């Protein structure tokens, strides 16, 4: 069973993977596993917020501010599903508990 992301978790980009922007989005590619994913413009914004400092909760709050006509719960669910997928594909890493990301 997949572990659900918690609001207090911090995520950072896997620097072994490559990020290539193109038109209205970007490709994420892991040269080792071959994993490849295209993310759209919003996905790029969310991915770039994963700096090891911001929590998942911080990120969903920031996204919510830009989509006031959509319920906060819906945005939180969608952002978490997106981030969970990037974690599963190893484009993002969870920061160890206790590491404040600084």
């Amino acid at each position, binding site marked *: 069973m997949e572990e659900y992301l918690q609001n207090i978790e911090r995520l950072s980009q896997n620097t072994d993977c*490559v990020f290539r922007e193109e*038109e209205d989005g970007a490709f994420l590619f892991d040269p080792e596993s071959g994993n490849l994913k295209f993310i759209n413009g919003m996905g790029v914004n969310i991915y770039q917020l994963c700096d090891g400092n911001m929590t998942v909760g911080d990120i969903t709050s920031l996204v919510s501010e830009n989509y006031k006509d959509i319920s906060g719960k819906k945005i939180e669910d969608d952002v978490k599903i997106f981030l969970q997928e990037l974690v599963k594909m190893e484009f993002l890493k969870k920061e160890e508990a206790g590491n404040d990301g600084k």
Partner: protein
Amino acid sequence: MTGNNAEYQLNSIYLYLTDRCNLRCRHCWIEPLYYEGREDNSSEFDLRSLKKAIEDAKEIGLNRVKLTGGEPFLRRDILDIVAYLHAQNITVDIETNGTLIDKEIVEALKVNCVNQVSVSLDSMTEEQHEIFRGVKGCYHDAVKGLSLLAGSGINTQLIMTLYKENVSEIERLVELSSRMGVGSVKINPVMPTGRGKRFFEKEENVEFGDLIKIDRWIEEELMSKYKIDIHFDIPIGLKSLKCIRTRQLFECNLFNIIGILSDGTISLCGIGQTETALNMGNIAVDDIREVWANNPILRKVRTDIPRNLEGICSRCIFKFRCRGACRACAYGLTGSLNSPFFVCHEAYEKGLFLESRMIN
């Protein structure tokens, strides 16, 4: 991937029914013998050997066979083979020049639920098609064959081989296909293998930059204008972002395919007709399961692709998906299964390969 046999299923066989052809196509990579008659050829594999190979291959995953050639309908027992494959619950696709198709054949293909028949047509101009295909009268026969197939409800595909002189025919052929009820159009730029080498020597092939422009034009204009599937066969690394995101692309399932040549030789695909070093046995004497499991060429392919691809293919972010496009063509050009695919190599050399699709 370790190259361990257990990881790979043999899903598909390219079955080259004959090495004879009733046309003399200027580009053909197989270079079949020109032959007008329909008599059986003693050098072609027999039905008993084929049945043994199919039944063995089913045990390791076989579910699809593409019948090709030479011209497959020159082989007298083709309809027996189609019926046998259907009885074995194998999906059957056929590639033909269309010139020998008649009502009786169409009916037999329908009865045996053939999945798709692809017919070659390169121009709406009779003279141009016939100069390219090398035989007078073949244009009308091909159009008639295509019409009979499309009219019968069989899933039909028009295959166009593209070179410099027939670029202006693309839209005309797409329009014809749309009007006839053909299911899809596949456009294959001529390759520098077999007889196709001469196109490149004489610079009759479409320029690499123009291939990319044609791809975008098809995606942005032609597809919406005619509402028909058009597959332009260039590697994914050169495709538009929209195409990559929204369309199913043709990719060689290199790890799940094997070729059986007309004399029963087992090879990587049709390349074995000219590159005999890629041959791995013969269905008359060898067990296809054993070949699939242990042949050193297949083991090398499974180990090397995509990890040991060379040149631009080693740097492409799509290499795990594309697997170097056509490895047979790469081998035919360089003698190496790992060498870069020539279209991407040339695009890279000319600065046409997007930086965003490369790793260092």
